[in-house]
Protein backbone atom coordinates (compact mmCIF):
# COMPACT_ATOMS: atom_id res chain seq x y z
CA UNK A 1 0.00 0.00 0.00
CA UNK A 2 1.28 3.41 -0.90
CA UNK A 3 1.47 5.91 1.89
CA UNK A 4 -0.13 9.22 1.17
CA UNK A 5 -0.19 12.17 3.55
CA UNK A 6 -3.82 12.75 2.63
CA UNK A 7 -4.96 9.29 3.72
CA UNK A 8 -2.88 9.64 6.86
CA UNK A 9 -4.73 12.82 7.65
CA UNK A 10 -8.07 11.14 7.04
CA UNK A 11 -7.13 8.31 9.39
CA UNK A 12 -5.94 10.81 11.94
CA UNK A 13 -9.16 12.79 11.77
CA UNK A 14 -11.29 9.70 12.00
CA UNK A 15 -9.62 8.47 15.18
CA UNK A 16 -9.81 11.78 16.96
CA UNK A 17 -13.23 12.25 18.50
CA UNK A 18 -12.80 15.95 18.94
CA UNK A 19 -13.64 17.80 15.76
CA UNK A 20 -16.58 20.17 15.99
CA UNK A 21 -19.03 17.72 14.41
CA UNK A 22 -17.54 14.59 15.83
CA UNK A 23 -18.89 11.13 15.52
CA UNK A 24 -19.63 9.43 18.80
CA UNK A 25 -16.74 7.65 20.49
CA UNK A 26 -17.68 4.80 22.77
CA UNK A 27 -16.61 1.80 24.77
CA UNK A 28 -19.19 -0.95 25.04
CA UNK A 29 -18.55 -3.71 27.60
CA UNK A 30 -20.16 -7.14 27.22
CA UNK A 31 -21.59 -6.74 30.74
CA UNK A 32 -21.43 -4.09 33.46
CA UNK A 33 -22.67 -5.96 36.53
CA UNK A 34 -20.96 -9.26 37.16
CA UNK A 35 -20.24 -11.88 39.78
CA UNK A 36 -16.62 -12.01 41.04
CA UNK A 37 -13.71 -13.27 38.95
CA UNK A 38 -15.31 -12.97 35.50
CA UNK A 39 -14.09 -11.81 32.11
CA UNK A 40 -15.55 -9.12 29.92
CA UNK A 41 -14.88 -8.17 26.34
CA UNK A 42 -15.17 -4.58 25.19
CA UNK A 43 -15.85 -3.00 21.79
CA UNK A 44 -14.35 0.42 21.14
CA UNK A 45 -15.55 2.35 18.12
CA UNK A 46 -16.48 5.69 16.61
CA UNK A 47 -19.81 5.90 14.86
CA UNK A 48 -22.93 7.99 14.41
CA UNK A 49 -25.24 5.14 15.38
CA UNK A 50 -25.26 3.76 18.91
CA UNK A 51 -23.91 1.19 19.48
CA UNK A 52 -23.06 -0.06 16.00
CA UNK A 53 -19.51 -0.32 14.80
CA UNK A 54 -19.94 0.86 11.22
CA UNK A 55 -17.47 3.71 10.86
CA UNK A 56 -14.06 3.56 12.49
CA UNK A 57 -12.24 1.81 15.33
CA UNK A 58 -11.39 3.77 18.46
CA UNK A 59 -7.66 3.68 19.07
CA UNK A 60 -6.65 1.91 22.27
CA UNK A 61 -3.27 3.66 22.65
CA UNK A 62 -4.38 5.76 25.56
CA UNK A 63 -6.60 3.18 27.24
CA UNK A 64 -6.28 3.40 30.98
CA UNK A 65 -8.00 0.77 33.07
CA UNK A 66 -8.17 1.37 36.80
CA UNK A 67 -8.85 -1.62 39.05
CA UNK A 68 -10.99 -1.48 42.22
CA UNK A 69 -7.81 -1.00 44.30
CA UNK A 70 -6.72 1.99 42.18
CA UNK A 71 -3.94 0.18 40.32
CA UNK A 72 -3.66 0.13 36.54
CA UNK A 73 -4.41 -3.16 34.81
CA UNK A 74 -3.64 -4.36 31.31
CA UNK A 75 -5.98 -5.87 28.77
CA UNK A 76 -5.72 -9.15 26.94
CA UNK A 77 -6.28 -9.82 23.25
CA UNK A 78 -6.36 -6.17 22.17
CA UNK A 79 -6.88 -5.63 18.47
CA UNK A 80 -8.25 -3.23 15.91
CA UNK A 81 -10.20 -4.04 12.78
CA UNK A 82 -11.82 -1.94 10.09
CA UNK A 83 -14.69 -0.80 12.28
CA UNK A 84 -13.84 -1.48 15.88
CA UNK A 85 -11.17 -2.23 18.41
CA UNK A 86 -11.72 -4.92 21.01
CA UNK A 87 -10.02 -6.14 24.14
CA UNK A 88 -10.67 -8.59 26.94
CA UNK A 89 -10.39 -7.81 30.62
CA UNK A 90 -10.17 -10.18 33.56
CA UNK A 91 -12.00 -8.78 36.59
CA UNK A 92 -9.69 -10.42 39.09
CA UNK A 93 -10.58 -8.09 41.95
CA UNK A 94 -13.97 -7.41 43.48
CA UNK A 95 -15.27 -3.91 42.93
CA UNK A 96 -15.54 -1.31 40.21
CA UNK A 97 -13.22 -0.90 37.23
CA UNK A 98 -13.00 2.31 35.24
CA UNK A 99 -12.15 1.90 31.57
CA UNK A 100 -11.04 5.19 30.07
CA UNK A 101 -9.47 6.39 26.86
CA UNK A 102 -7.83 9.63 27.85
CA UNK A 103 -6.47 11.93 25.19
CA UNK A 104 -4.80 15.26 25.65
CA UNK A 105 -2.99 17.27 23.06
CA UNK A 106 -2.82 20.23 20.76
CA UNK A 107 -4.29 20.93 17.36
CA UNK A 108 -2.74 23.58 15.18
CA UNK A 109 -3.66 25.22 11.89
CA UNK A 110 -1.12 27.32 10.04
CA UNK A 111 -0.02 28.46 6.62
CA UNK A 112 3.29 27.70 5.04
CA UNK A 113 4.20 29.08 1.59
CA UNK A 114 0.54 29.88 1.03
CA UNK A 115 -0.49 26.30 1.81
CA UNK A 116 -2.86 25.47 4.69
CA UNK A 117 -1.43 22.94 7.13
CA UNK A 118 -2.85 21.01 10.04
CA UNK A 119 -0.87 19.60 12.89
CA UNK A 120 -1.58 17.50 15.96
CA UNK A 121 0.77 16.64 18.76
CA UNK A 122 2.04 17.36 22.24
CA UNK A 123 3.10 20.66 23.75
CA UNK A 124 6.74 19.53 23.66
CA UNK A 125 6.56 18.69 19.95
CA UNK A 126 4.86 21.97 19.00
CA UNK A 127 7.99 24.10 19.04
CA UNK A 128 10.04 21.49 17.18
CA UNK A 129 7.59 20.54 14.47
CA UNK A 130 5.96 23.78 13.44
CA UNK A 131 8.30 26.04 11.49
CA UNK A 132 9.07 29.35 13.15
CA UNK A 133 8.04 31.23 10.01
CA UNK A 134 4.56 29.64 9.92
CA UNK A 135 1.83 32.18 9.24
CA UNK A 136 -1.58 32.50 10.93
CA UNK A 137 -0.68 29.90 13.52
CA UNK A 138 -3.68 28.92 15.61
CA UNK A 139 -3.27 26.42 18.41
CA UNK A 140 -6.08 24.71 20.28
CA UNK A 141 -5.79 22.46 23.28
CA UNK A 142 -7.96 19.35 23.64
CA UNK A 143 -8.69 17.07 26.55
CA UNK A 144 -11.02 14.12 26.20
CA UNK A 145 -12.15 11.09 28.15
CA UNK A 146 -14.21 8.21 26.80
CA UNK A 147 -15.23 5.98 29.67
CA UNK A 148 -17.29 3.09 30.88
CA UNK A 149 -17.56 1.24 34.17
CA UNK A 150 -17.92 -2.40 35.14
CA UNK A 151 -18.29 -3.99 38.56
CA UNK A 152 -17.54 -7.49 39.78
CA UNK A 153 -19.22 -8.20 43.11
CA UNK A 154 -19.98 -5.18 45.29
CA UNK A 155 -19.29 -1.76 43.74
CA UNK A 156 -16.69 0.61 45.20
CA UNK A 157 -15.42 4.08 44.36
CA UNK A 158 -11.61 3.85 44.46
CA UNK A 159 -11.20 3.68 40.67
CA UNK A 160 -13.56 6.62 40.14
CA UNK A 161 -11.38 9.29 41.74
CA UNK A 162 -10.87 12.30 39.53
CA UNK A 163 -7.57 13.43 38.06
CA UNK A 164 -8.42 17.13 38.25
CA UNK A 165 -7.75 17.67 34.54
CA UNK A 166 -10.47 18.37 31.99
CA UNK A 167 -14.08 17.23 32.22
CA UNK A 168 -14.75 14.32 34.55
CA UNK A 169 -17.72 12.47 35.98
CA UNK A 170 -18.01 11.96 39.72
CA UNK A 171 -20.59 9.43 40.84
CA UNK A 172 -23.39 10.42 43.14
CA UNK A 173 -25.33 7.36 42.04
CA UNK A 174 -22.89 4.56 41.31
CA UNK A 175 -22.59 4.10 37.51
CA UNK A 176 -23.13 0.35 37.88
CA UNK A 177 -26.26 0.74 39.98
CA UNK A 178 -28.61 2.12 37.35
CA UNK A 179 -32.18 0.90 37.01
CA UNK A 180 -35.04 2.12 34.86
CA UNK A 181 -37.63 4.06 36.82
CA UNK A 182 -34.99 5.35 39.24
CA UNK A 183 -33.26 8.72 39.08
CA UNK A 184 -29.48 8.64 38.84
CA UNK A 185 -27.31 11.60 39.82
CA UNK A 186 -23.87 12.43 38.50
CA UNK A 187 -21.61 15.36 39.23
CA UNK A 188 -19.29 16.83 36.62
CA UNK A 189 -16.06 18.62 37.30
CA UNK A 190 -13.94 20.78 35.04
CA UNK A 191 -10.32 20.81 36.18
CA UNK A 192 -11.53 19.40 39.49
CA UNK A 193 -14.12 22.13 40.14
CA UNK A 194 -17.91 21.77 39.77
CA UNK A 195 -18.90 22.20 36.11
CA UNK A 196 -21.88 24.45 36.89
CA UNK A 197 -24.38 24.81 34.05
CA UNK A 198 -22.70 22.12 31.92
CA UNK A 199 -24.87 20.97 29.01
CA UNK A 200 -25.09 17.19 28.93
CA UNK A 201 -26.59 15.06 26.19
CA UNK A 202 -27.68 11.46 26.71
CA UNK A 203 -28.64 9.21 23.80
CA UNK A 204 -30.13 5.73 24.21
CA UNK A 205 -28.56 2.84 22.32
CA UNK A 206 -30.41 0.95 19.63
CA UNK A 207 -30.66 4.08 17.45
CA UNK A 208 -30.82 2.03 14.25
CA UNK A 209 -34.29 0.86 15.14
CA UNK A 210 -36.03 4.16 15.72
CA UNK A 211 -36.67 7.32 13.75
CA UNK A 212 -35.38 9.87 16.22
CA UNK A 213 -32.27 10.29 18.31
CA UNK A 214 -34.43 10.57 21.47
CA UNK A 215 -31.73 12.66 23.15
CA UNK A 216 -32.12 13.69 26.75
CA UNK A 217 -30.73 17.21 27.17
CA UNK A 218 -29.76 18.22 30.68
CA UNK A 219 -28.08 21.17 32.35
CA UNK A 220 -25.94 20.70 35.42
CA UNK A 221 -26.88 22.73 38.49
CA UNK A 222 -24.51 25.03 40.37
CA UNK A 223 -22.75 22.00 41.88
CA UNK A 224 -22.24 20.46 38.45
CA UNK A 225 -24.93 17.85 39.16
CA UNK A 226 -27.43 16.31 36.78
CA UNK A 227 -30.35 14.00 37.59
CA UNK A 228 -31.17 11.43 34.91
CA UNK A 229 -34.52 9.69 34.71
CA UNK A 230 -33.80 6.69 32.47
CA UNK A 231 -36.86 6.18 30.28
CA UNK A 232 -36.22 2.47 29.76
CA UNK A 233 -33.63 -0.22 30.38
CA UNK A 234 -30.78 -0.42 27.92
CA UNK A 235 -27.47 1.13 27.01
CA UNK A 236 -26.98 4.90 27.04
CA UNK A 237 -24.27 7.21 25.77
CA UNK A 238 -23.57 10.46 27.56
CA UNK A 239 -21.56 13.38 26.25
CA UNK A 240 -20.60 16.84 27.38
CA UNK A 241 -18.20 19.40 25.91
CA UNK A 242 -16.78 22.63 27.22
CA UNK A 243 -14.95 25.23 25.15
CA UNK A 244 -13.09 27.92 27.02
CA UNK A 245 -9.84 29.85 27.17
CA UNK A 246 -8.44 28.03 30.21
CA UNK A 247 -5.53 26.44 28.43
CA UNK A 248 -2.56 24.99 30.24
CA UNK A 249 -0.30 25.54 27.24
CA UNK A 250 0.92 29.07 26.53
CA UNK A 251 0.54 28.92 22.74
CA UNK A 252 -3.04 27.63 22.87
CA UNK A 253 -5.83 30.20 22.82
CA UNK A 254 -8.76 27.81 23.13
CA UNK A 255 -9.36 24.63 25.10
CA UNK A 256 -11.94 21.96 24.33
CA UNK A 257 -12.69 19.49 27.09
CA UNK A 258 -14.87 16.54 26.18
CA UNK A 259 -16.38 13.74 28.23
CA UNK A 260 -18.26 10.69 26.93
CA UNK A 261 -19.39 7.57 28.74
CA UNK A 262 -21.45 4.46 28.18
CA UNK A 263 -23.90 3.26 30.84
CA UNK A 264 -26.06 0.21 31.17
CA UNK A 265 -29.47 0.64 32.79
CA UNK A 266 -31.07 -2.58 34.01
CA UNK A 267 -34.76 -3.40 34.20
CA UNK A 268 -36.44 -3.58 37.60
Amino acid at each position, binding site marked *: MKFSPKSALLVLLSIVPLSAFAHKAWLLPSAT*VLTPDQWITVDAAISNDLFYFNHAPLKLDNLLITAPDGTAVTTENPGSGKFRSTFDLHLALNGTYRLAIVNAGLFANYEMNGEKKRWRGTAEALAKEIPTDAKNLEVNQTQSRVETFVTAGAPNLTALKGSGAGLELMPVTHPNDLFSGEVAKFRFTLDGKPAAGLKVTIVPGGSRYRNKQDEIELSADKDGEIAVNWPRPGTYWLEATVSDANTSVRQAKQRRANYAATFEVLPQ
Partner: protein
Amino acid sequence: MRTTCFLAFTGLIAGSAVAADLTVSVELATIDVAEYHRPYVAVWIEGEDQAVAANLAVWYQQNTGKGEGGKVEQGSKWLADLRQWWRRSGRSVTLPIDTVSGATRPAGVHRLEFSDAKPPLAGVAAGNYKVVVEVAREVGGHELLRMPLQWPPNKPVHAEARGEHELGLITLDLNP
Protein backbone atom coordinates in the same frame (compact mmCIF):
# COMPACT_ATOMS: atom_id res chain seq x y z
CA MET B 1 -26.79 -33.00 83.35
CA ARG B 2 -30.22 -32.78 84.85
CA THR B 3 -29.90 -29.00 85.19
CA THR B 4 -28.88 -28.61 81.55
CA CYS B 5 -31.93 -30.55 80.38
CA PHE B 6 -34.18 -28.45 82.55
CA LEU B 7 -32.70 -25.22 81.20
CA ALA B 8 -33.05 -26.41 77.66
CA PHE B 9 -36.66 -27.28 78.33
CA THR B 10 -37.51 -23.85 79.77
CA GLY B 11 -35.68 -22.30 76.85
CA LEU B 12 -37.99 -24.14 74.49
CA ILE B 13 -41.10 -23.03 76.36
CA ALA B 14 -39.96 -19.42 76.43
CA GLY B 15 -39.21 -19.62 72.70
CA SER B 16 -42.57 -21.03 71.71
CA ALA B 17 -44.44 -18.46 73.79
CA VAL B 18 -43.36 -15.74 71.34
CA ALA B 19 -42.65 -17.95 68.37
CA ALA B 20 -43.93 -17.00 64.97
CA ASP B 21 -43.76 -19.09 61.84
CA LEU B 22 -43.58 -18.16 58.19
CA THR B 23 -44.26 -20.60 55.41
CA VAL B 24 -43.56 -19.51 51.84
CA SER B 25 -44.71 -21.74 49.08
CA VAL B 26 -43.11 -21.09 45.70
CA GLU B 27 -44.48 -22.65 42.55
CA LEU B 28 -42.03 -22.77 39.67
CA ALA B 29 -44.04 -22.86 36.47
CA THR B 30 -43.94 -25.97 34.33
CA ILE B 31 -42.58 -24.81 31.01
CA ASP B 32 -42.68 -27.08 28.01
CA VAL B 33 -39.65 -26.13 25.93
CA ALA B 34 -36.98 -28.16 24.17
CA GLU B 35 -34.18 -26.61 26.20
CA TYR B 36 -35.24 -26.33 29.83
CA HIS B 37 -32.87 -25.39 32.60
CA ARG B 38 -34.02 -25.22 36.18
CA PRO B 39 -34.28 -21.53 37.12
CA TYR B 40 -32.15 -19.61 39.56
CA VAL B 41 -34.39 -18.45 42.40
CA ALA B 42 -33.96 -16.01 45.27
CA VAL B 43 -36.47 -15.49 48.08
CA TRP B 44 -35.88 -12.75 50.60
CA ILE B 45 -37.50 -10.31 52.99
CA GLU B 46 -36.98 -6.64 52.25
CA GLY B 47 -37.61 -3.65 54.47
CA GLU B 48 -39.38 -0.48 53.47
CA ASP B 49 -36.06 0.95 52.25
CA GLN B 50 -35.67 -2.19 50.10
CA ALA B 51 -32.69 -3.32 52.20
CA VAL B 52 -32.59 -7.07 52.71
CA ALA B 53 -33.78 -8.02 56.20
CA ALA B 54 -33.30 -11.75 55.65
CA ASN B 55 -32.34 -14.05 52.82
CA LEU B 56 -34.71 -17.02 52.83
CA ALA B 57 -33.47 -19.05 49.87
CA VAL B 58 -31.10 -18.82 46.92
CA TRP B 59 -31.12 -21.72 44.50
CA TYR B 60 -28.43 -21.94 41.87
CA GLN B 61 -26.18 -24.47 40.23
CA GLN B 62 -23.81 -25.46 43.00
CA ASN B 63 -21.15 -27.35 41.13
CA THR B 64 -18.71 -26.24 38.50
CA GLY B 65 -20.07 -27.00 35.09
CA LYS B 66 -18.17 -27.96 31.98
CA GLY B 67 -19.70 -26.20 29.03
CA GLU B 68 -18.95 -26.24 25.34
CA GLY B 69 -15.34 -26.83 24.44
CA GLY B 70 -14.62 -28.04 27.98
CA LYS B 71 -14.82 -24.49 29.36
CA VAL B 72 -15.11 -24.60 33.12
CA GLU B 73 -17.76 -22.32 34.55
CA GLN B 74 -18.89 -21.77 38.11
CA GLY B 75 -22.64 -22.08 38.62
CA SER B 76 -22.47 -18.89 40.67
CA LYS B 77 -21.39 -16.92 37.56
CA TRP B 78 -25.02 -16.30 36.57
CA LEU B 79 -26.27 -15.18 39.99
CA ALA B 80 -26.17 -11.57 38.78
CA ASP B 81 -29.12 -12.50 36.52
CA LEU B 82 -31.19 -12.41 39.71
CA ARG B 83 -30.58 -8.71 39.29
CA GLN B 84 -32.61 -7.29 42.17
CA TRP B 85 -31.36 -9.88 44.61
CA TRP B 86 -27.82 -9.45 43.32
CA ARG B 87 -28.05 -5.71 43.80
CA ARG B 88 -29.64 -5.82 47.25
CA SER B 89 -27.74 -8.74 48.70
CA GLY B 90 -25.83 -11.14 46.45
CA ARG B 91 -23.01 -8.84 45.46
CA SER B 92 -22.17 -8.09 49.11
CA VAL B 93 -22.45 -11.55 50.71
CA THR B 94 -20.04 -14.45 50.84
CA LEU B 95 -21.41 -17.44 49.00
CA PRO B 96 -22.68 -19.97 49.78
CA ILE B 97 -24.97 -18.58 52.49
CA ASP B 98 -25.39 -21.16 55.23
CA THR B 99 -28.88 -22.77 55.22
CA VAL B 100 -29.97 -20.36 52.46
CA SER B 101 -27.97 -21.41 49.39
CA GLY B 102 -29.17 -24.57 47.72
CA ALA B 103 -29.30 -26.46 44.46
CA THR B 104 -31.74 -25.52 41.71
CA ARG B 105 -35.15 -27.18 41.97
CA PRO B 106 -37.52 -28.62 39.40
CA ALA B 107 -40.84 -27.15 38.32
CA GLY B 108 -43.53 -27.60 40.95
CA VAL B 109 -44.40 -26.35 44.43
CA HIS B 110 -41.68 -25.89 47.02
CA ARG B 111 -42.52 -25.16 50.64
CA LEU B 112 -40.10 -23.17 52.73
CA GLU B 113 -40.73 -23.12 56.47
CA PHE B 114 -39.16 -20.69 58.89
CA SER B 115 -39.45 -20.01 62.58
CA ASP B 116 -38.35 -16.88 64.37
CA ALA B 117 -36.38 -19.06 66.78
CA LYS B 118 -33.80 -19.80 64.10
CA PRO B 119 -31.91 -17.98 61.38
CA PRO B 120 -32.68 -16.45 58.98
CA LEU B 121 -35.84 -15.14 60.70
CA ALA B 122 -34.33 -14.87 64.17
CA GLY B 123 -33.49 -11.26 64.84
CA VAL B 124 -35.78 -9.74 62.21
CA ALA B 125 -37.18 -6.64 63.96
CA ALA B 126 -40.91 -5.96 64.08
CA GLY B 127 -42.07 -3.94 61.10
CA ASN B 128 -43.53 -3.79 57.62
CA TYR B 129 -41.71 -5.88 55.06
CA LYS B 130 -42.19 -7.53 51.70
CA VAL B 131 -41.40 -11.08 50.73
CA VAL B 132 -39.71 -10.99 47.33
CA VAL B 133 -39.43 -13.96 44.98
CA GLU B 134 -37.17 -13.49 41.95
CA VAL B 135 -36.59 -16.06 39.23
CA ALA B 136 -34.19 -16.09 36.26
CA ARG B 137 -34.02 -19.02 33.87
CA GLU B 138 -31.27 -19.72 31.36
CA VAL B 139 -32.62 -19.17 27.81
CA GLY B 140 -35.90 -18.34 29.54
CA GLY B 141 -37.56 -15.49 31.35
CA HIS B 142 -37.18 -13.41 34.48
CA GLU B 143 -39.91 -12.65 36.97
CA LEU B 144 -40.18 -10.91 40.31
CA LEU B 145 -43.08 -10.85 42.77
CA ARG B 146 -43.46 -8.88 45.99
CA MET B 147 -45.94 -9.67 48.75
CA PRO B 148 -46.50 -7.55 51.86
CA LEU B 149 -45.50 -9.01 55.21
CA GLN B 150 -46.16 -7.63 58.65
CA TRP B 151 -43.77 -9.13 61.16
CA PRO B 152 -44.37 -10.59 63.64
CA PRO B 153 -47.98 -11.62 62.95
CA ASN B 154 -50.56 -11.15 65.69
CA LYS B 155 -53.02 -13.54 64.03
CA PRO B 156 -52.80 -16.23 61.36
CA VAL B 157 -52.45 -14.70 57.89
CA HIS B 158 -52.73 -16.30 54.47
CA ALA B 159 -51.81 -14.38 51.31
CA GLU B 160 -51.46 -15.37 47.67
CA ALA B 161 -49.97 -13.95 44.50
CA ARG B 162 -49.69 -15.44 41.07
CA GLY B 163 -46.86 -15.10 38.60
CA GLU B 164 -47.34 -14.68 34.89
CA HIS B 165 -44.75 -16.87 33.22
CA GLU B 166 -41.90 -18.19 35.35
CA LEU B 167 -43.77 -18.27 38.65
CA GLY B 168 -47.04 -19.99 39.49
CA LEU B 169 -48.87 -19.53 42.77
CA ILE B 170 -46.89 -17.99 45.64
CA THR B 171 -48.44 -18.26 49.09
CA LEU B 172 -47.48 -16.83 52.45
CA ASP B 173 -48.74 -18.34 55.70
CA LEU B 174 -48.00 -16.63 58.97
CA ASN B 175 -48.75 -17.99 62.40
CA PRO B 176 -48.18 -16.18 65.66
